[in-house]
């Protein structure tokens, strides 16, 4: 462990400003990017645990269908699981939490470009979340359409779709403002000497993500508004009896929601690109290629939405093109994977918990990505579409990818955010449980899907029973792992050893300032004279 002074300055940005009487008001009214980021982080992790509990219940129910919950409840469960994990946790996910806390620091700024808009987007996020949650309690019952809100069912079901859809609409607005804010911040607020190619990889991916948020989310907003108008005023854009076309809904929806996949995973890749060099003590191999491939993924990602709809009815030409372009996404993703592995080559590796999570990311994301190629091919897609294979695939990419990188970032930046160290042994124990449970849980889904088990079904023929039992047992290990990880982190906030300024030997700017972060970030704005990961120069 490298230690450069204790760096302890007391309470850092947690210290009370005494501007308001109540601590809550002081935080809610704060425009400090670190405070907003911490609030986001707590909200996200709370929703994550709710989503995990819902998913866990789904798995339990599949053990013996009908015993635990009824059919309608089951439909509501998987809808809420999807809506919460996707719209409340993983889409805002990394940018709003870690992006908010660390983006300005990584580029040497005192705050984001528009601090008050940043606060506004936090308020919008809270509003959207409250709307989504009230839809569960209001008359009509929780949404039961699946997180995709496919028309025309979403227009006709008696369940309470309108509120949930408006909630997601507001969340989208929050997401647009965050993206806009970050892109402007990166353009305008970089410290003197920090050229584009002296910027760490994480801001680069946030930059690509910001553009995707701005370019894709408005399309989702208008699409969801159509659903809302369809339900409230009877405007029938997606209702065949009124001349509308439900397939058009799918097009508009995926035109957003496929790029949204990259909103989730691009910043995750950024985090991995930060962690791997630090724990291998080498500069990021192919740094420029890694940064550029983030932009590459963001751009290609716009032209692949059709691969969600191969069986919905599309011309063969369109399907061939969409399939081909989907394969192209594998190229920049592969560039990243190979560069991370090359960074590790001949490095002096320290297998601390953040690196374990990062390595799991590389492993699980590779599986997720490669199975993506299987379902991106037309012929196999026809067989696997709408089966558990898809469920396995996107859990490997979303949870194994984005989810693991959030855990990696939590451990990596924990000392910097809280000023305390977590307990390494428990972190590793939790990781081991999580990793094993994850693979049992989701890999068995590939097998189930290949055998033909359709997704979202409440019941199944007895031939799938073994597969479901194995999968559910995996979810127990996974849950134990998560409990250990979070119990350890929560305990460490209060009981952990005081963290030094630079516990991992990181080279990026956040490690040059005290832990926990001081309120003003930098006493004076640093002047940048070198690249972000200069390990080799030092060794020479």
């Amino acid at each position, binding site marked *: 462990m490298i230690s450069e002074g204790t760096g302890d300055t007391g309470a850092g940005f947690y210290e009370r400003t005494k501007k308001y009487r109540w601590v809550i008001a002081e935080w809610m009214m704060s425009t400090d990017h670190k405070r907003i980021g911490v609030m986001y982080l707590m909200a996200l992790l709370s929703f994550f645990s709710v989503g995990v509990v819902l998913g866990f219940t789904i798995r339990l129910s599949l053990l013996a269908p009908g015993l635990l919950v009824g059919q309608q409840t089951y439909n509501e469960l998987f809808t809420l699981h999807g809506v919460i994990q996707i719209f409340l946790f993983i889409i805002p996910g990394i940018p709003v939490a870690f992006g908010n806390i660390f983006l300005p620091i990584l580029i040497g700024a005192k705050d984001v*470009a*528009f601090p008050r*808009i940043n606060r506004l987007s936090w308020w919008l996020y809270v509003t959207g979340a409250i709307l989504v949650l009230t839809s569960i309690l209001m008359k009509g019952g929780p949404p039961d359409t699946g997180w995709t809100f496919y028309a025309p069912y979403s227009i006709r079901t008696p369940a309470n779709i309108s509120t949930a859809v408006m909630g997601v609409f507001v969340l989208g607005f929050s997401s*647009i403002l965050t993206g*806009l*804010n970050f*892109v*402007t911040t990166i*353009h*305008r607020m970089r410290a003197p000497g920090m050229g584009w190619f002296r910027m760490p990889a994480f801001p680069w991916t946030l930059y690509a993500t910001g553009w995707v948020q*701005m*370019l894709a*989310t*408005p*399309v989702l*907003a*208008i*699409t969801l*508004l*159509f659903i809302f*108008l369809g339900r409230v*005023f*009877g*405007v*029938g*854009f997606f209702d065949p009896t*009124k*001349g*509308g*076309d439900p397939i*058009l809904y799918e097009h*508009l929806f995926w035109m957003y929601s496929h790029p949204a996949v990259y909103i989730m995973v691009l910043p995750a890749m950024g985090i991995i690109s930060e962690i791997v060099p630090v724990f291998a003590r080498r500069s990021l191999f192919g740094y420029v290629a890694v940064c550029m491939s983030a932009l590459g993924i963001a751009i290609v990602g716009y032209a692949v939405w059709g691969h969600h709809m191969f069986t919905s009815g599309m011309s063969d030409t369109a399907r061939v093109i969409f399939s081909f372009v989907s394969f192209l996404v594998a190229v920049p993703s592969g560039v990243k994977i190979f560069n991370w592995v090359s960074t590790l080559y001949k490095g002096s590796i320290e297998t601390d918990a953040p690196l374990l999570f990062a390595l799991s990311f590389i492993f699980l994301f590779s599986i997720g990505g490669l199975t993506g190629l299987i379902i991106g091919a037309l012929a196999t897609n026809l067989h696997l579409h709408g089966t558990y294979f898809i469920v396995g695939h996107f859990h490997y990419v979303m949870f194994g990818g984005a989810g693991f990188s959030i855990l990696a970032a939590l451990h990596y930046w924990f000392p910097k955010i809280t000023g305390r160290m977590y307990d390494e042994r428990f972190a590793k124990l939790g990781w081991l449980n999580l990793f094993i449970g994850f693979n049992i849980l989701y890999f068995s889904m590939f097998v189930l899907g290949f055998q033909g088990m359709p997704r979202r079904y409440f019941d199944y023929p007895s031939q799938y029973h073994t597969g479901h039992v194995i999968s559910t047992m995996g979810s127990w290990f996974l849950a134990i792992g998560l409990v250990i990880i979070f119990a350890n982190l929560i305990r460490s906030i209060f009981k952990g050893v005081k963290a030094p300024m630079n516990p991992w030997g990181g080279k990026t700017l956040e490690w040059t300032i005290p832990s926990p972060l001081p309120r003003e970030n930098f006493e004076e704005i640093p002047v940048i004279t070198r690249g972000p990961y200069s390990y080799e120069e030092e060794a020479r």
Partner: protein
Amino acid sequence: MGMWFFLFTEILFFGGMFLLYSIYRYKYALDFHSGAAEENIILGTINTCILLTSSFTIALSIGAIKKGLKNLSLRLQFATILMGLAFLVIKYFEWTAKINLGIYPDSPVLLKLSKGEILFFGLYYVMTGLHGLHVLVGVVVISFMFYFTRSGTINRDDNARLENTGLYWHFVDIVWIYLYPLFYLIT
């Protein structure tokens, strides 16, 4: 810069609607033709003139404040607000006339029409409705700018807020320039 990004996202927002419009118009070209024949072209044209003129006045008001002519700028902003309101009032009469004919989403009269016409009027209400909402927001924002200019926080040297408002207003204007031919002139 932030404002330009925001307008960019607004373009995409309306883009979704224009996309639907073009697809359904391609599918039901004749119905759209007969639907547009029902529109009141006179009111539509008057509204176009009003909105274009208001875009002109807000541009002038920005020019005025940059030269330090506070009172002129205030008067021009006031004129813009009035024209925005006039636009909304005329729109209101247009909508009520249509609703009195029984044409509104999900109405019995509308559902008896052909599918293309149902979609045409659905799009008409949604697109002009959301555009009207943007006009309303614009009027409120300009009223705030009026207040700021009068109290002097927007002045010769600090007028970025007014300029951004102007950009927004031009955007609203541009959207209307596209809506006008698509709903009134295609017969």
